[in-house]
């Protein structure tokens, strides 16, 4: 679909400007720009990714309202896991992560054999708002694409989510307004966790390191490590 009509384009830009203005308070103040990449990445398989930590387990709820263990979602395939919330408007937070993930998925789909060995897992910060129905809305057709496994989940309660965030070292805080009341903004550092098929976290990317060609090579490196690519 093209947003070609001038009136529609104006609406889009006005909305975007409003979103961006509102998002300024939530943006990581030292990370105002997309990650630069002034280098040629190493060829996949020529380096070894560190074994950083064992991926923790937790019981989650997916977009189909089914209970699913995180272990099940982080083993058997190469998993790229990230936390998000559906109404995040920080341009360099969840929307940038979404753009990165969709771009990466498109690259992976050019190699169907590799794509079948990879899954994306998104876990919402906000179980109260991001119910299964909301996750289905957000996910659109992504989670039901047989070509690529992309799972959208959250915890059943905030109390169940907090230990998981601690285990991943994923910070998040509610931003308060001038009156001290909590706002809808969840200030968080954008992070993605690359997990090998055995459930070991092998790389962690924050915004400065979210360079798509590097992510793709790291995924290929893990696939080569398993010896089946």
């Amino acid at each position, binding site marked *: 679909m093209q947003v070609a009509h001038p009136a529609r384009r104006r609406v889009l*830009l006005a909305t975007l400007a409003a979103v961006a203005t509102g998002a300024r308070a939530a943006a990581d103040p030292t990370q105002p720009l997309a990650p630069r990449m002034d*280098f*040629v990445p190493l060829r996949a398989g020529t380096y070894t990714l560190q074994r950083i930590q064992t991926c923790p387990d937790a019981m989650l709820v997916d977009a189909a309202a089914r209970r699913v263990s995180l272990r099940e979602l982080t083993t058997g395939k190469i998993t790229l896991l990230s936390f998000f919330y559906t109404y995040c408007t920080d341009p360099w937070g969840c*929307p940038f992560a979404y753009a990165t993930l969709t771009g990466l998925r498109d690259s992976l789909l050019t190699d169907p054999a590799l794509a079948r060995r990879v899954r994306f897992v998104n876990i919402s910060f906000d179980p109260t708002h991001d119910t299964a129905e909301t996750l289905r*809305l957000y*996910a659109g057709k992504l989670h039901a694409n047989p070509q690529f496994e992309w799972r959208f989940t959250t915890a059943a309660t*905030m109390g169940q989510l907090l230990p998981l965030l601690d285990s991943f070292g994923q910070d998040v805080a509610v931003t*308060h307004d001038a009156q001290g009341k909590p706002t809808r903004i969840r200030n968080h550092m954008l992070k993605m966790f690359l997990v090998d098929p055995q459930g070991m976290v092998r790389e962690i990317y924050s915004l400065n390191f979210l360079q798509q060609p590097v992510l793709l090579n790291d995924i290929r490196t893990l696939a080569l490590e398993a010896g089946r690519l």
Partner: protein
Amino acid sequence: VSVNRPLFDAIFKESDMKTRTIAMGVLMLLTSLGTQADETCNSPYMSKLIKGQEDFVHVLTLGVQGWGDGSDKLVTIDANPASKKYGKVVHSVSMKERGEAHHMGFTDDRRYLWAGGLESNKIHVFDVGSNPAEPKLVRTITDVGAKTGYGGPHTFYAMPGRMLIGMLSNTADKGGITGLAVYNNQGQFVAKYPMPTSQIGGVQGDGYGYDVAINPAKNALLTSSFTGLDNYRRELGAVVGDAAAMKKFGNTMVMWNLKSMQPTQVLSVPGAPLEIRWSLNPGDNWAVTATALTSKLWLVKPKAGDTSGDQWEAKEIATIGDPAKIPLPVDISLTADGKGLWVNTFMDGMTRYFDLSKPEQAREVYAKQTGKQVNMISQSWDGKRVYITSSLLEKWDKTGGDNEQFLRAFHWDGKELKPAFEVDFAKEKLGRAHHMKFSVKADSARALAAPAAPMAVARAR
């Protein structure tokens, strides 16, 4: 519309190129207008960055026998002028031992502060995020020597989910041949990497280590080199008077491929290059360092004429004081825009400011004696506040009346350092004041448990 995916679908997927370009331009412009950040000496790749006024300065101190319990400490000082306790010590926590506490660094989530003991070879981890006014010692990592064979954990540099540690020594002969260690944020050992001792890029590696600093845009890790425990735990006068000991200092910097953690180039930088600061100015790809023994500023930058994009060169750009008098530059602090550099020289107690607007033509534009001995220097992100401490190493600090131990805070208006407040660490019996980090009172992640304002879920389309 509370689900934003369709909006960003419109930007990234469905809009025409012109609309997409304009839209992203609007986003980048509006976001950059809000750019403010933390002090400039940390790893810049962390969250909860301080936007303006810091509330607290945390000072790591080396214990002194007879001063209180004689142990190393993390001392917290109120640094907010709006506070009734401004300039006062509000908290201190003892490590219950004296192990040459030296440098520290936040984890990437800025919740925990890791502090290394150059003699104890231990890492003390403090929870600062829960209550910055009252840091708590929550973990002591004691397996550094056993896991790595290295000693003297010096620099703590936050990487996503883990800490990169620049080491100074080793457990075998206590000399300067050492390496890098990586621990995850839970305090578990992940990996180790030896400093190169072979020739790489035509320059002989010396195996020494000190500071570490990353430029993710170049996939580059830069390291510097100092000396081993057998020198830094010996009286400075004895070291200087021992020709053999003086040969046991690093004379190199090493460029590494960050992804593979393999050294790619050894650079000749004679005289113990210490602190490294990459310019944080967007688009810059250079770093600066100061050499302790030769009293020079050096620039590390992409090699002129190189078309591969991965070759670097080190270039001497300025002299600090009179090198013949060995003023001993010990710490530097680069302004957020990369256009100015503070340099502290220990022996003469001088704080100098260099204009780096043309990095290859650095020139000193200001100097002031700020103490009888000065070591670390940290500045706020806006550069308006500058903090200085006094201690270098237990065995290298001056003695008698010259052995001042302090934190001195200054206002900087671009022309003059004006005293703001001072804490006398000798009078307070808190130890030798060394490394500093800032913190602010922050929202707790636990506030997430509080429900946000009710919101409607609307179908976007």
